């Protein structure tokens, strides 16, 4: 450790959460001012606080900037095909119910190409936590308009402005019956961490939408500016309202007077998805303790 001047901070080589990261891959490829790293950090802090052993955590990602997360965290992780993060996670959650499954993916991956999977995973109330990083565009492919891009926003595919109404993801997921629905911006890092922890501990489908700055894809063509300026927008305009009507929590980042409602919106206790028998699935060897005993008893009877 060396200091380079009277006001320099102590220079370190290693971060406390480096044990949970593939630190040799850092610094990561994400742009300066992007919020995906913060979300990753909040996930790791929640993972540490959950008290569940790191081997019992699984991180599943789709494709896109946010899909890179699975490659940077050093837990069992799955970088799945485009839009299919939820079916992969569903398979894991059903076959190995003792695992804590977390899906970290983007708005384009989860609500556009994987939109149907999102609806049906929430309808079935599968026991998993979904962190949807919403940056209002398709970032990795160069800033095209997606299903969450606000109206009138300019992008690579909409030079005259988007004409469609964007998705209201908390309302959508609540309507099909998810157990836990929250929305935070990247600036609400502590609340985000607490929500991820609540989602991990909640049986059933937990959905957390994270509003993240995207200076390259969304900020530049729409004059929002760099990542820090979008963060200051969240600082000014976010309103914490847990009891907000979910019909009214649409986001319009481009209209200066519209508030951005954040909070833990829904917390209910519908029974979580369990395969038809209601019994836990058999172990990979095909024999549970009970079935072995039953078979032995049947043999004795014969």
């Amino acid at each position, binding site marked *: 450790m060396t200091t380079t001047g009277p006001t320099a*901070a102590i220079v370190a080589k290693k971060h406390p959460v480096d044990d949970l990261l593939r630190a040799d891959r850092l610094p990561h490829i994400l742009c*300066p001012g992007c919020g995906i790293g913060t979300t990753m950090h909040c996930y790791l802090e929640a993972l540490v606080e959950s008290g569940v052993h790191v081997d019992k955590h699984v991180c599943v990602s789709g494709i896109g900037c946010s899909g890179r997360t699975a490659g940077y965290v050093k837990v069992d992780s799955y970088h799945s095909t485009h839009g299919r993060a939820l079916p992969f996670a569903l398979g894991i959650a059903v076959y190995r119910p003792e695992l804590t499954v977390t899906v970290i993916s983007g708005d384009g991956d989860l609500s556009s190409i994987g939109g149907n999977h999102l609806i049906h995973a929430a309808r079935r109330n599968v026991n998993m936590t979904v962190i949807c990083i919403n940056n209002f565009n398709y970032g990795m492919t160069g800033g095209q308009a997606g299903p969450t891009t606000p109206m009138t926003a300019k992008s690579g595919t909409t030079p005259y402005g988007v004409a469609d109404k964007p998705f209201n993801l908390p309302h959508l997921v609540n309507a099909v019956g998810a157990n836990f629905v929250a929305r935070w911006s990247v600036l609400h*890092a502590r609340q985000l961490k607490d929500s991820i922890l609540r989602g991990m501990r909640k049986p059933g489908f937990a959905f957390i939408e994270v509003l993240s700055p995207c200076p390259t894809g969304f900020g530049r063509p729409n004059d929002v500016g760099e990542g*820090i300026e979008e963060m200051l927008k969240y600082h000014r305009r976010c309103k914490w309202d847990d009891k907000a009507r979910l019909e009214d929590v649409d986001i319009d980042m481009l209209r200066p007077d519209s508030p951005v409602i954040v909070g833990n919106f829904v917390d209910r206790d519908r029974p979580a998805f369990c395969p038809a028998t209601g019994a836990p699935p058999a172990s990979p060897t095909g024999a549970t303790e009970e079935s072995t005993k039953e078979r032995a008893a049947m043999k004795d009877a014969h």
Partner: protein
Amino acid sequence: MTKTHRKSDQPKNKPLRTPMDLSYAKVPQGQVYVIPERCKECRFCVEFCPQGMLTLSTEINAKGYHYPQIREGREKDCIHCGFCNLVCPEFAIYTHEIAAVDTPIQEGSHEHAVTE
């Protein structure tokens, strides 16, 4: 810049009531650690440090970014809240608690904690 999620009209950083543990609570003192090679100069830590004690360096790292460092004369101001650690997207800054300051919190002592 106002905190819109706070419902009252209280000025920023002013507590809504006198804390019940005011007589014996101690402010922790932290130490900031920086990993300059990872920094990409997003300025989240500098902007959102509640003590406003960080600034950008004059030197640059290998990729040409200015990394955070402590303002002159503010070395002992870190209260180990850990927000820079949590908000940094690059895992490039963190704090450690070194000691709890012996002097109890004075009413109004929070007022210097204003971010620029």
